[in-house]
């Protein structure tokens, strides 16, 4: 409590007040019968999302499912990559997907056509998926029948980076048609990423794109980032990525 007026000022501000420092606390208590109190909290604003994310991770692990969050700008080829991964995996891996989009279930329809379980999350105006949306989607999927679950985030290279979804791996995709300068320009998505994959590499002969530049810049953001390059049009090019997911699942279980 503040010694001057008993207003419940915390310790540090109280000391400042005693020493005569301006602490921004005035003693106008907002009229009769009301007091002003400054409280220091240091409360983590992402806490509830982080709690749900941890629960998602554990829940998936109990079902022996490795979950992979895919982040990229719109049109980098997330869905096309998933289509190729599903085809290449064939019967070796049981794959499911959660498809996040602002509107329409077009991506979900594309993947369902391959015969895998897909749940579409339509976020409305929200620019990212969060752990609670993924949690709800998990209830709609037959987790016991899956080895690998892809969570295709909303196409956006900024906002999704802030939200832990409870996946075991988070990856950023960048297509060669987007330009080789994008990694340093959009660094937030890389903050919790474990892998980075260049896509549409079949188009490299047609665009001015230095493949080393984004990889170099990504490694500066996160030194242990795993790097991949593939084209959804060339099935053999996604094999290393698939191998990486399988290895991660083996290590996790």
């Amino acid at each position, binding site marked *: 409590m503040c010694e001057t007026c008993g207003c419940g000022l915390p310790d540090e501000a109280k000391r400042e007040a005693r020493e005569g420092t301006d602490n921004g606390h005035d003693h106008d208590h907002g009229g009769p019968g009301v007091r*002003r*109190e400054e*409280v220091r909290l*240091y409360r983590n604003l992402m806490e*509830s999302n982080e709690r749900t994310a941890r629960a998602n991770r554990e829940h998936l692990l109990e079902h022996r499912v490795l979950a992979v969050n895919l982040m990229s700008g719109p049109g980098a080829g997330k869905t096309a990559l998933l289509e190729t991964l599903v085809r290449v995996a064939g019967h070796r891996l049981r794959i499911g997907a959660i498809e996040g989009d602002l509107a329409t279930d077009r991506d979900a329809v594309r993947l369902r056509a391959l015969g895998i379980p897909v749940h579409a999350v339509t976020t409305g105006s929200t620019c990212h998926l969060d752990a609670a949306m993924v949690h709800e989607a998990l209830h709609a999927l037959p987790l016991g029948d899956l080895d690998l679950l892809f969570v295709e985030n909303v196409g956006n290279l900024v906002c999704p980076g802030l939200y832990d979804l409870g996946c075991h791996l988070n990856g950023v995709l960048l297509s060669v048609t987007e330009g080789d300068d994008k990694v340093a320009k959009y660094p937030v998505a890389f903050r919790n990423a474990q892998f980075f994959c260049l896509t549409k590499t079949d188009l490299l002969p047609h665009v001015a794109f230095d493949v080393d530049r984004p990889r170099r810049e990504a490694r500066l953001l996160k030194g242990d980032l795993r790097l991949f390059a593939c084209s959804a049009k060339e099935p053999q090019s996604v094999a290393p990525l698939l191998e990486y997911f399988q290895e991660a699942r083996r290590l996790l279980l």
Partner: protein
Amino acid sequence: MHEWSLATGVVKAAEEEARRRGAVKVLSVVVAAGFRTGVVPELLERAFEAARVGTLLEGAALRVEVEPLRLHCLSCGGETERETYRLVCPRCGGGEVEVRSGDDLVLKSLELEIPEG
């Protein structure tokens, strides 16, 4: 707009803390945003103006303080503070670093109005 989600999160957390203390009004809010969260103070403040409507925070001022990324380097032992996204020691270039702060979004303080007695 994730600033909108964040702003509603700020309002929800602040209202919870205010109610717990018997406050009838929140006069001001301070949020500390780590540089690496990519939060833009102006955007969050603008979103907050809409998110606070009809809550205990109606009329409350929000201040967003951006905190630099503080790294501890496991190679050279250096403690550095920079406004950067890079998880690399700026002194020795080492990639094995621990994030000490600058990666979080935190409700730092509130100024409340509480009825006496």
